[in-house]
Structure formats: structure tokens, C-alpha cells
């Protein structure tokens, strides 16, 4: 692991340990009170989910047209993080919704579109796991299609939704939430980078091991 990894990991752990205090110091949101605090984990998770998706998509396109294994490793690691942070988002969301609005699920545009995109990411992982040899290129194709699909998912869910009006929409963020929110975003971003680095390194080691096996054969 590179030199910066361990200190960064310690910093990240410290930041997460600090988050409850930082969040507690934020003012109460007017309508929902204490429950709103979950937002400080929910929003950064959602942003990391989005980041993972974009990284995976871009790396997949580069892999498809260059066949460079590095891009493939990036795409796979990013896909796993997309699934992880997506899961966090999709769990914290309903928890919040239940307390705030009394329902577990709302067919809100963003929520539904996130669910569908998350499922595409899960499909990517299933393909990598069970697709057998040569599934790298296939997965890259899937990721590309998934990425291209996002606007269509949004538009179709949005107009579908207007037939079934939702009970509420995600509220806008009051300005005074700024500080604690950015702190949490920074913590999550650091976590993302650390996990990404670990995961990519695992694949690099695997590739190196394969190369060693191959060279033994010479």
C-alpha cells in the first residue's frame, strides 16, 4: 500500500468518530426535528453512489476501446463501491422516510431512478462473478449501457410518477446545514478513496500473481 494510506485511514476513522458530534451541533431542521439528522449520512452516501457510477462508466468506456486492464480494475472497484454506497443510500432513505412521512417507500423520481441504477450496478457484479472468463468486456458494455440509460430512467420514471403523485418530495437544504454536511461529505469521500484504493490494489496483486504463474511456465 502507498505511504499515504495508513495515515489517511486513521484520519478517516477519526473523522467518522467525530461525525456524531458534528451532526449534533447542527441546528434542528424545522419540520422533522431529530430525524433529519440521518440526512447527514444519507446525502453523502448518495453522492458517493453517484461518483462510483460515473467512475465505473467512464473506466468501462476506456477499457472497451483500449483493452488496458487498469481501466477494467478501476471499473470493477468503482462498481463495488457503487453497490455499497447505493445500498447505504437506499437503506437510510426509507429509514428517514418512515419517521418523517410515515411511509417506508415513496415513488419519488430520484429514489426510483436510484433503485434502478443500483440494480444495474448489482447486475454488473453478478456478471463479473458468474460470467466466467472473458466477462470483463461484457461487463464494460453493461456499464456503458447503464450509464447511457440514466437520463432515460429519469425521464420515464418522472412522467410515470405524475400519474401516481408522491406524498412529498425531498426537501431543499437550509443554508445553516452547510458546515456539518461538508464535513460528512469529506469523510465519505475519504472513505470512498480508501476503499477504492484497497480494492484496486487487490486486483493489481491478483494480476501480478497471474503474471508470476505465467512466467514460471517459461
Amino acid at each position, binding site marked *: 500500500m502507498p505511504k499515504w494510506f495508513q495515515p489517511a485511514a486513521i484520519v478517516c476513522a477519526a473523522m467518522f468518530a467525530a461525525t456524531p458530534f458534528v451532526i449534533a451541533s447542527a441546528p434542528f431542521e424545522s419540520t422533522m426535528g431529530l430525524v433529519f439528522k440521518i440526512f447527514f449520512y444519507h446525502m453523502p452516501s448518495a453522492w458517493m453512489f453517484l461518483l462510483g457510477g460515473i467512475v465505473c462508466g467512464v473506466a468501462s468506456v476506456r477499457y*472497451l*476501446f483500449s483493452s488496458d486492464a487498469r481501466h477494467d480494475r478501476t471499473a470493477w472497484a468503482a462498481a463495488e463501491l457503487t453497490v455499497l454506497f447505493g445500498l447505504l443510500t437506499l437503506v437510510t432513505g426509507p429509514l428517514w422516510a418512515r419517521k418523517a412521512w410515515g411511509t417506508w417507500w415513496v415513488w419519488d423520481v430520484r429514489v426510483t431512478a436510484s433503485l*434502478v441504477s443500483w*440494480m*444495474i450496478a448489482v*447486475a454488473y457484479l*453478478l*456478471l463479473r462473478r*458468474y*460470467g*466466467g472468463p*472473458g*466477462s470483463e*468486456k*461484457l461487463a*464494460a*458494455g*453493461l456499464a*456503458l*449501457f*447503464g450509464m*447511457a*440509460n440514466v437520463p*432515460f*430512467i429519469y*425521464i*420515464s*420514471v418522472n*412522467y*410515470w410518477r405524475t*400519474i401516481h403523485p408522491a406524498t412529498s418530495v425531498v426537501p431543499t437544504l437550509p443554508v445553516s446545514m452547510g458546515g456539518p454536511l461538508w464535513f460528512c461529505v469529506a469523510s465519505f469521500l475519504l472513505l470512498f478513496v480508501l476503499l477504492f484504493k484497497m480494492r484496486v490494489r487487490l486486483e493489481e496483486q491478483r494480476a501480478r500473481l497471474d503474471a508470476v504463474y505465467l512466467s514460471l511456465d517459461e
Partner: protein
Amino acid sequence: MFIRAVWLILRKDLTVEVRSGEIAYTTLFFAVSCILIFAFALVRDGRAPEDGAAGLLWIAIAFAGTLALGRAFERERQAETLRALLMAPAARPAVYLGKLLGIVALLVGVEAVLVPLVALLFEARAMLAHPVWLAGILAAGTIGFASVGTLFAAMLIRARTRDVLLPVLLYPVIVPVMIAAVRGTAVLLQPEFDAQVAAFWLALLATFDVVFVTLALWTFEPVMTD
């Protein structure tokens, strides 16, 4: 030359299918069975669920289409003929396009039976009142489904778990197609037909088709080469 290759492949697929009938008959029968199961499950006291016909039609098309895709490419796998096609000097995307058109033709044939059946069983005869719109939505939706499905099925041809992976990969990606197709068809069932809404869904489907067929043509070669 590209067009000629596409035509040759399409004609070959249609000839093979006409001779053996395997995919057409089994897909059709499966689709009808689906509809029947839906009917048994959902028709209560002899009354069909109000808005259900559109959704059920497209679910049946999606399931039957997945089956047909699997079988169509399984056939190419058997004598490794897909390899022979890729070896030909024709541009490789021509192979994709030829296969796509073949699948669409097959599904349109299945839909020709399914639509009247659904209209009948679910008291949705209103669906047939605007045949041009219906045909448009069926065509655009089928092409959208098949555009992604053909690429994925071709990609998976050498994977061992291809049968289960095809729906796993395909269904999340075609969610917009399903939404647009179902909503578009449902509009036809409303007492007052709203042409504007129907046009919106049709336009969305058409855009999806153009974008994804283009993407598939672009990525077919890199995805299929080792």
C-alpha cells in the same frame, strides 16, 4: 455492402426459423401461457383488473422475448456459426443489425397474436381502437427491448451461466422501455384518448431506440473481440 450483409443474415435467420419453427412456436406458446396465468391470477368474479391489460401485455412480451433471444443465440452457438459470421469480411455491426431485425420480426409475429388475446381476455378492446398508435408503440417498444437484448445475448454466448444472466442484465436496463411502452399502451385504454401523452411516450421510445441501437453498433465489435 453493409446493407447486403444485414439482408443476407436476416434472410438466413428467417429461412431457418420458417423451416424449423422452433423458436416461433415455443415463444408464442409461452407468451400465451403467461397471459393465461395472469388471467387466472387477476381476473376476479369474471371482471378483469381495470388498467392491467397494458402492463400484462408488456410483461408477456418481455418474458417471451428473453426466451426467444436465448434460443436464437443458442442456435448460433451450436455449430459455432456466430464465429463464422464474425469471420466474414462484412463489418461486424452488420451481424448485430441482421440478428436484431430477425428478433424484432419474430416478436412482432408473437405480438400479432398476443394483442388480440389480451384485448379479449382483459376486456381491453379499446386498445384496438387506435391501431396506428398501437402499432407505433409496439414497434418502438419491441425495437428498444431487442436492441439491448440482442447485444447482451450475443455477448453472453460463451458464458456458462448465460441463461440466467441474460434476464439479470437485461431487465434493469430496459426499465425505461417498459415504463414508456406500458404507459403508452395504457393511454390507448383511457376513455378519452390523449394524443399528446401518447406522442410523448412514443417519442421517448423512439429516442431510446436510436440511442441504444447506435451504442450497440458502436460497441458490438470491441465487446465481441477477445
